[in-house]
């Protein structure tokens, strides 16, 4: 089965949603499905679900109410969720983002919160420890 391509990747899976809080769960479900296909452990999938949720929180609470783009890029070592939404003057030092950041530090190997062109962008990477 050509599930994982030559470079050991699944996806990318790109999802565009309106900034509707209830869709956070749908994105966690989709991320869980992708990570499960890629052989991630239950604990890693729990971390991925939190990472996806934090990305959504930051973009829904700080974005302009337009659509949010979320991307899952997965290989046998890392699961990266990237999110972005159109917005000018995203204050990456906003104290409201601090709790998100602390949580991402706890569950992710690496993450970033940036203003890029006219988008707020957030990404987070969870590692898969092959046994």
């Amino acid at each position: 089965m050509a599930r994982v391509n030559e470079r050991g990747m699944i996806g990318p899976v790109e999802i565009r949603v309106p900034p509707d809080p209830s869709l956070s769960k749908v994105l966690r479900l989709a991320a869980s499905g992708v990570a499960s296909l890629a052989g991630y452990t239950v604990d890693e999938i729990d971390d991925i679900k939190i990472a996806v949720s934090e990305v959504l929180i930051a973009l829904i609470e700080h974005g302009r109410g337009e659509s949010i783009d979320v991307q899952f890029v997965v290989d046998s070592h890392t699961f990266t969720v990237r999110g972005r939404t159109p917005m000018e003057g995203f204050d990456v030092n906003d104290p409201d983002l601090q709790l998100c950041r602390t949580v991402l530090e706890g569950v992710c190997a690496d993450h970033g919160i940036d203003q890029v062109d006219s988008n707020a962008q957030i990404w987070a990477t969870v590692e898969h420890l092959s046994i």
Partner: protein
Amino acid sequence: MTETGSPDSLTVEVGAHGELVVTGDIDIAGGPILDSAITDREEHGPVVIDVAAVSFIDSSGLRSLLGAARRARGRDEVVALRNVGAEVARLLEITGTTEQFEISAASDPSPAGSGESADSDGAGE
């Protein structure tokens, strides 16, 4: 906890009586896995497939089953589906293909499987 996720959405094992025990989703990814398990099995006599733990089936999964049924007819045999649950029964009915198999429902007093459709999601949510 360190259980791994289930990277395959479908697994096929050979049961105690030589029947194929299918677990998971028979979809466009799982169909080919089932296909090759069935063709391996055909050398050993009539094919019996336990679908108790099949949680989903679509037309690509059905095509695998119909292909097996067609090949079986060529050998004057019939493919038996055991412990047929709601999902499989529904697709056979919709497509008018129930008669191509020897069917026993999940509730029939027959070689018991787990008797229940497993939630084989494995997606942790």
